[in-house]
């Protein structure tokens, strides 16, 4: 298949996805989330007009200016990658609740390489990003290994490893040689390791955007391809569906489960590289707190029903809502309220994504039935 044909096929499948009922369901899920968010605004706002203004900000903030839009895409990159991390493990029947920990360890690896190694530009970035992948993969490997060796539930190991990662990052990052910029990072210590911007900042002037969003999209397509077209995807999904039947068929079950967790961890690690290596990086929350991004990743995967291509959109959407919530602060909503509203929206979306899937199934059954009755009716005439 030529590259062009591939792109064509991709566009066609995107079109199909947009016109599908899954898409409408997601749309309703999102609207119901926003609606509940609005109710909370009404409860907390000083006046009705204030609440309406807040809602308006929330929904349009991300489009307000090219720089805003650029920033939405910019912060979507790590979110997409974390969403992919959760979805990938899920396809193998594993629940990766440890993306936060993998993200933090990946971040430490990236920062160490960025600050302590000197390499020419671009290459430095690539090496730092690869290091982040390795870090995340190690953190994914541990729960995978414990699961297959000692049958320890990966959820428990992942949660505990999140804490280990949080405390490790305190130790590792508060090392002046590595990262001594406190919590407001504006200066750049490692210009050679920066993510290339490919002129995207000219497209979205005034924004932080760099090629991380392109990397995230490319990785999403790659993951889709792996799951759909390769023997690796075939065996990972087989293990996810039935361990016994996979074992019978000679598919190495343990190896695939570990591999799946390592890939999931690697994706979370890469997300950290996208988060900490830009010219204007996110500051490293090293104060022994678990980075909540792993949990956002769960929502993102859920909204997209673990479909890698869908995750590109759900990731961008969550980033968009987060930016809008930030802007609401200018309208008298304080930071805590905006985080509550944002979390409520995310939760509502996740819940309705569940409900939506259920409705979709029922609709499909009904449709099939009526179609058949039609056909049979025709035959009778």
């Amino acid at each position, binding site marked *: 298949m030529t590259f062009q044909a591939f792109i064509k096929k991709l566009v066609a499948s995107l079109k199909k996805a947009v016109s599908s009922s899954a898409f409408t369901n997601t749309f309703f899920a999102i609207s119901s989330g926003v609606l509940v968010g609005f109710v909370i605004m009404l409860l907390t706002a000083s006046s009705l007009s204030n609440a309406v203004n807040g809602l308006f900000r929330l929904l349009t903030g991300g489009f307000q200016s090219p720089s805003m839009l650029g920033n939405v895409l910019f912060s979507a990159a790590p979110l997409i990658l974390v969403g992919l991390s959760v979805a990938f493990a899920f396809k193998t029947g594993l629940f990766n609740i440890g993306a936060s920990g993998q993200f933090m360890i990946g971040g430490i690896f990236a920062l160490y390489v960025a600050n302590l190694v000197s390499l020419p530009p671009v290459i430095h970035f690539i090496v730092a990003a690869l290091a982040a992948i390795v870090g995340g993969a190690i953190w994914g490997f541990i729960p995978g290994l414990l699961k297959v060796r000692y049958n320890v539930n990966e959820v428990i190991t992942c949660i505990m490893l999140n804490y280990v990662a949080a405390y490790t990052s305190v130790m590792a990052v508060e090392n002046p040689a590595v990262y001594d910029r406190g919590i407001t990072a504006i200066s750049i210590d490692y210009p050679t390791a920066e993510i290339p911007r490919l002129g995207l900042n000219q497209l979205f002037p005034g924004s932080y955007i760099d090629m991380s969003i392109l990397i995230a999209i490319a990785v999403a397509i790659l993951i889709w391809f792996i799951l759909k077209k390769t023997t690796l995807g075939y065996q990972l999904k087989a293990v996810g569906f039935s361990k016994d*039947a996979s074992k019978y*068929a*000679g*598919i190495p079950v343990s190896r695939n489960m570990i591999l799946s967790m390592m890939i999931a961890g690697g994706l979370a690690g890469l997300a950290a590289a996208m988060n900490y290596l830009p010219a204007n990086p996110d500051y490293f929350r090293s104060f022994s707190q678990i980075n909540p991004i792993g949990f956002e990743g769960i929502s993102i995967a859920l909204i997209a029903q673990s479909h890698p291509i869908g995750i590109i959109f759900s990731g961008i959407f969550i980033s968009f809502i987060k930016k809008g919530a930030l802007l609401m602060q200018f309208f008298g909503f304080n930071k805590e309220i905006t985080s509550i509203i944002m979390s409520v929206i995310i939760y509502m979306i996740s819940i309705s994504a569940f409900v939506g899937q259920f409705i979709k199934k029922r609709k499909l059954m009904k449709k099939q039935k009526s179609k058949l009755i039609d056909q049979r009716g025709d035959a009778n005439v």
Partner: protein
Amino acid sequence: MNYAIEMINITKTFGTLIANDNITFQVKPGEIHAILGENGAGKSTLMSILFGLYTADSGTILINGQEVKIKNPNDANRYKIGMVHQHFKLVDVFSVIDNILLGAETTKHGFMQNDVPRKAIEELSIRYALKVDLDSYIKDISVGMQQRVEILKMLYRNADILIFDEPTAVLTPQEIEGLFKVIKAFAAEGKSIIIITHKLNEIKAIAQRCTVLRKGKHVATVDVSNTSVERLAELMVGRDVSFEVEKSKANPKEVVLEVKNLNLQNKDRTKMILKNVNFQVKAGEIVCIAGIEGNGQTQLINLITGLDKLHDLNSHITLNGADITNVSIRKRFELGMSHIPEDRQKYGLILDYTLSENMISNTYYFDKFQKNGLLKFEAISAYTNQLIEQYDIRSSMGEYTKTRSMSGGNQQKAIIARETSREHHLLIAAQPTRGLDVGAIEYVHKTIVAQRDLNHAILVVSLELDEVMTISDRILVMYEGEIVGEFDPLKTTVEEIGLYMSGSKRMELSTDDIPSIH
């Protein structure tokens, strides 16, 4: 005439497939009514409609002359309909009593009150001689007992109409006898019984009338007493069925599988499950292991195929001369082993994969189906369609059908197709015809014999003595983990083998020199 159940002009479709096509079906009170039909004929579907698992697209259901709507199993319970499913629906990690009470719990202030129901269940269990251990977990008890749990579950809900979907497929002959006694007792009390089975002599033994379905359509309802087994088979398949398999004399060649001093202890090391098992299977012969269920056959097969690990250091298994005692399952396959597993839903199929995905589950990494890690979808689909054609695997959407939605018999055919079409030198088949209709059984037996004539070595485990007698070239009888006898099917009788199976007789087989009858 008033009927206990009337299903009138029932139609049910799945996608483009018409599983039930305008079927009318009536059962009298106190009657035992059999349903017969090929795999995928729509038997389970029809009964699932009566039990409220599916709703019919059109048609009416009358219970005792009253028209009713049965939308879910709770409705069915209300109309006193109970069903024992083809694949049991019990919660593995719950105890027997919890499974029986599930959904019909007696509570007081929100707490379970198990004393009263326990008494009631114990009484039922004594009255109908349905022996169960109320406090064991489902995962620890035999399939026979699981079935008794299912029956008690129905009785506890006061069912008057009892549906059994292939109840005998998983039972030993003794258990079948017990089950039939119970069923007859139910009928004597005026309960109506519907029983789906593929075994024609069982229909003769127990049913008064029999309804035959073919490809979703009602073919006939006949009085069993004046219809011969041959006639039943013909009605069902639409052609003559031969119960005998034509086969020439075996011509065994080199040893393919050799099992030496196989010993296995149970988990807590208190009992020997396999004791010093020794035998060989040669190219070009069919060896059958006969025995009553639970005498170590499952464990033996699991060790040979690698599903279980072998810990005993003196035990050895060789395949084509290579020691496979501790090699991986994939390696065993590559060395020439094929395996039709006993439990088709647990091991045989990845139920959420499509038929074509299942057809390559142990060969997907071969050059034939992949290149540089990319699956060759065209090759896979061509291969699948060829097997669907050749083995007559019926399903609603062909290669795209999720195997979970296929009928039990067609699932089995799919596995047989996969395992016999793959390159191999040894075929291990555990209960290969369980749940198959007579036409399909005939086909499988022919396939197995054809495999032999291709010079493959074949090892079959079967609980059905008839099957053992028809297809084997050599019979090994297992009793309590030991091989207690070896026979030539032409020189023995079912009765003689029965004596060895029940442990009343045994041969002394020397362990290092295995006698063979040629």
